[in-house]
């Protein structure tokens, strides 16, 4: 059957695939940055000791983490139009950010808790406020400790972006699927995008290893 493969379909479909890939990247980067920012705030809310705030953050995280991502994508896309006009792409960007925030928040919570209490005391003792302590002392250390896990979560996120095909947003996978159907060469196109996913994830993980060595804190 391999004799019947025709990879010549790849070339003409490249511009379209590229568009899909760019959307996958945009989705990953938006959800990562938004997720880390919201996630860090959620983590701080849970660790703040405030009852209402902590409970609200915990409920949000637990809720998000107990629903499959695909369900969230579908639900948000189906329910959002009742309130706002929204494209599948925007819907995906919002869903991913909100969903990833829950996961990043758990990572950040562990990261913040891994910093010894004495560091907070030392920072308070020179007169820093709670937010200065978090910003200059605790979070920079927590981020460094958590970078491997944060990036691993980001790989998973990048791979999960393929789930947006369910609501018709054109990401890398959807673009390949569409062109494959157009030319009747779905298998070739799927092999091609698998390769793209692999190359991207593999080089990213090499980069993470390199980063780890560079920014590790000497203890």
């Amino acid at each position, binding site marked *: 059957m391999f004799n019947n493969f025709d990879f010549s379909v790849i070339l003409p479909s490249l511009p379209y695939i590229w568009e899909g890939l760019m959307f996958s990247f945009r989705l990953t980067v938006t959800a990562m940055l938004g997720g880390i920012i919201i996630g860090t705030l959620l983590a701080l809310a849970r660790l703040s000791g405030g009852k209402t705030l902590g409970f609200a953050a915990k409920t949000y995280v637990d809720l998000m983490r107990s629903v499959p991502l695909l369900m969230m994508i579908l639900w948000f896309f189906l329910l959002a139009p009742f309130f706002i006009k929204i494209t599948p792409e925007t819907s995906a960007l919002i869903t991913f950010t909100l969903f990833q925030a829950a996961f990043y928040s758990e990572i950040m919570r562990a990261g913040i808790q891994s910093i*010894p209490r*004495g*560091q907070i*005391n*030392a*920072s*308070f*003792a*020179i*007169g*820093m*406020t709670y937010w*200065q302590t978090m910003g*200059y*002392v605790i979070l*920079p*250390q927590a981020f*460094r400790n958590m970078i491997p896990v944060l990036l691993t979560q980001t790989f998973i996120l990048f791979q999960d972006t393929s789930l947006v095909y369910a609501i018709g947003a054109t990401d890398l996978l959807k673009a390949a699927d569409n062109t494959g159907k157009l030319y009747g060469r779905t298998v070739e196109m799927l092999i091609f995008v698998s390769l793209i996913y692999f190359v991207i994830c593999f080089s990213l993980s090499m980069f993470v290893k390199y980063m780890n060595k560079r920014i590790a*804190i*000497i*203890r």
Partner: protein
Amino acid sequence: MIQIQNVSKWYGNFQVLTDCSTHIAKGEVVVVCGPSGSGKSTLIKCVNGLEPVQQGKIIVNGTQVNDPATDLPKLRSHVGMVFQHFELFPHMSIIQNLAIGQTKVLGRSADEAHERGMKLLDRVGIKMHANKFPGELSGGQQQRVAIARALSMDPICMLFDEPTSALDPEMISEVLDVMVDLANEGMTMMVVTHEMGFARKVAHRVVFMDHGQIVEDAPKEDFFGKPHSDRAQQFLSKILNH
């Protein structure tokens, strides 16, 4: 300078401090000693509000620490504190450790903070390591940096929470030397320590604690000469025999 009035503190139902009262005058050096778990570290952490107290009053330089209206960061910025485990910021270089409080809390310029930091590093003998990271220094060096960091804020008094307990024996003296110099310059100091040699040398008074209570609060001569309480006598006879 520091007044501790009838302070009691509980962790849940467990009482860690019972009706503690003492005071430290300007320029005075007071050593707090006592067996493990006697509440000495807890007491000193209450002085700059790192630990809350449930009863009593702590007044530092005229400001009540445990008054909810007190601006704690402002108060702490001129009360230096040195910890058992140094607690330098491991992701910053030594000089950055000394500069951060000066720039972010006192609002000094980066140049000014750097200059003051280098001066203090020179004083504690660490100037050549200014650009290293805390993890690259020995325990004794780190603790001297920690003292310099506290001094960089131009404190009106200094709190030491077992500053030599985590150090190898041969590094203890280099830290104590810095502390003795400070004491001789007239710095107001409250020092939780087991170093009785240090207490004999520079302390004006010794406070002895046991089970969360201040059992003895006496001038150093009286404390080492003839402690009133049996508990203090026992303690002294045990630790001075070694």
